[in-house]
């Protein structure tokens, strides 16, 4: 049997179909709401590279031209479009660890704080992407992509991915169960931000390619997220392996390819 069919079959098991559907919905809403246009336009007002001394003025002007509510809404939809598939493992852990009557509540608590962490990062990453546009002009997309590739190659990135594999104890009863869901969401969100931030910047500076690059970055982040943990060291970014290695070994390439116990 072709290994890819085994790989794809794994995505037919719950909760993958639901999470992929939520991501697709987020993507659709991003497209409909024209969020794909606002963030790039946000940066597009600045054409070409500006000297360092004018960056603060340019940033002020860009923020003044766009409502912060709209920027946050677009960022929120971006998170909905890109992050759900990354949550399969922690959600499965919560589901299997909880009383049946608590499963939805604890899962919701986890998602809420996880989402909250990403929302808190929205302003920082948006400002960073805008700075990139101001600094690099039309070269911002190439710069952001290079930055993401570089980050994916670092030991720190691998270490953050490893920590993202860590599951936490979920209490079985009462408020403790929900507390544990909230805590797990925060911690998982922080490690997710640490491993994914660079790829999130790429669609933010992509201009008219915003939506396609959301999809591409989402696939890269999912592949990295699913790769097995391994020793933190410099390595080829997973996306490079995707291009250069057979499909079967793609995911193993990101981790150590080991499952040793």
């Amino acid at each position, binding site marked *: *049997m072709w*290994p890819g*069919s*085994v*790989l794809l*079959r*794994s*995505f037919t*098991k719950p909760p993958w179909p639901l999470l992929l559907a939520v991501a697709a919905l987020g993507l659709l809403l991003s497209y409909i709401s024209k969020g794909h246009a606002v963030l790039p336009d946000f940066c597009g007002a600045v054409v070409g590279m500006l000297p360092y001394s004018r960056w603060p003025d340019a940033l002020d002007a860009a923020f003044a031209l766009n409502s912060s509510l709209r920027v946050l809404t677009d960022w929120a939809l971006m998170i909905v479009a890109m992050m759900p598939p990354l949550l*399969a*493992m922690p959600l*499965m*852990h919560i589901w*299997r*660890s*909880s*009383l*049946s009557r608590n499963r939805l509540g604890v899962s919701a608590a986890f998602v809420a704080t996880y989402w909250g962490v990403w929302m808190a990062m929205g302003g920082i990453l948006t400002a960073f992407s805008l700075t990139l546009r101001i600094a690099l002009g039309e070269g911002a997309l190439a710069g952001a992509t290079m930055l993401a590739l570089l980050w994916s190659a670092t030991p720190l990135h*691998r*270490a953050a991915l*490893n*920590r993202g*594999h*860590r*599951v*936490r*104890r*979920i*209490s*079985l*009863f009462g408020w*403790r169960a929900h507390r544990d869901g909230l805590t797990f969401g925060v911690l998982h969100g922080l490690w997710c931000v640490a491993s994914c931030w660079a790829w999130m910047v790429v669609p933010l500076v992509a201009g008219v390619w915003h939506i396609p690059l959301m999809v591409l970055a989402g696939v890269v982040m999912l592949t990295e997220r*699913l*790769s*097995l*943990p*391994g*020793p*933190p060291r410099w390595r080829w970014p997973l996306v490079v392996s995707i291009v250069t290695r057979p499909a*079967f*070994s793609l*995911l*193993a*390439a990101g*981790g*150590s*390819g*080991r*499952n*040793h*116990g």
Partner: protein
Amino acid sequence: MSVVRQDVATLGAGWNKVLLNYALAMRELDKLPISNRNSWKFLAAIHGFDTQLWSDLKLLQTGDQVPDDLISDTYGNQCQHGSWYFLPWHRAYLFAFESIVAAKVKELTGDEWALPYWNYLDAGNPQARRVPEAFLAETLPDGDPNPLRKYPRRAGFSEIPSGLSLAAMEENDFLVGKDGAISFGGGISGDFVQFGGWTGALELNPHNAVHRMVGGDSGFMGDPLLAGLDPIFWLHHCNIDRLWEAWMSTPGKTMVRDPRWLEGPADRRFIMPNVGGADLGLNVAARDTLRGGKFHRRYDDLTRGTGVAPGAEAVVRVKMGSPESQSVEPIGANEEQVRVGGAPVRTQLTLESASMSAGVASMGATETGKEVSRLYLALESVRGKAPSPLLDVYINLPDGADPHGHPEHLAGSLTLFGLNVASRPDGAHGGNGLSYTLDISDLVQRLANAGNFNPSQIRVTLVPGEQISEESAITVGRISVLKRHGVVVN
């Protein structure tokens, strides 16, 4: 090769031909550099390898070139524990090892050779638990040092003490439930699924127990990073493999049919070296290890020391329906992570009273169509630094009682083999450690019959054994009670 694997006890005392050939081949393979994929060290490193540890133990000499494929993503550190790939991966591993040793034996002596198994649970052999004499002898018949005792074992080791069990063979299902927390062969892993590293019943005992009993805290068998160096490792795993084969050959047992297992894993690759170590190794899918597959081998006997009689219905426990139709739900847990150091630790579990009572009431059901339950104690995300610590688990011990004086409260003894590796934050388990389930149905029934059971709560006492101390403590992320539920079928 059509040679059948045989019980080492039936091959003759002392330096019988099979063991002598094994020693001669090992001596030659152990001379090869680790960069050679057929070398003894390379074969052992496929199971587990750590450059620093091996250097500290002088297993790597100055000038040794550690090949990239041991420390990168291919051959090294592949061993599967706490996983439904535990049995198929080790079967393929045995096949590759046996092929390489057999080729060397053929080259040296012209003899055919097959890996023998150590049938330590053969009740018909009073010497079954004693390690074969050839593994203890100082020298070969020609007076040269004996390679079969080259690598260290527990000080003074010559025989496995009591404590092994064939209870795993009573389990009817390779795995049950959505994640395989309860299983004969290990929990679901790989394939983008991450659960707690659930250890299967056969892996827990006798597999883990034998590793600890032979290796102790300083012998190589006690550490997965070193175990493959000890030549007795292979006879031990050959017996584990035979137990799996015997289990599969017994009517009433349900092997996993999940295509993810059969064709998997999807998210990584298992690979074994060829004879000669050619670049293209042998890719392994779990399906390849089943009867008719390229890694399958025959045994001379599947009855002695297996607890089952292949071909005959041997269902000790009531059949609870297909694995897919059974459910596994947590119905109780403790409130905080538990740390176990140098002294016993007690923790209290709160239970869903109604669910627990219903579970206890239906445990003894035998009538077809009736609901039936079994209860399990789950130790989740156990972490620690030691390679194979021992932990005894008691339920509802009287206050102040010496645990060892109350074996009637013992739920089980756990050898946490591989805990060191599974607990590494940057290891393949993501630092989540390993998880274990103990069937407590009979114990709970006895306690309930004696009036010593409260369906709202139970007390669990964790008693540290060897390799657990204040300096080398373990933590247990959560202790829970799982209810396995099904319907009695014929």
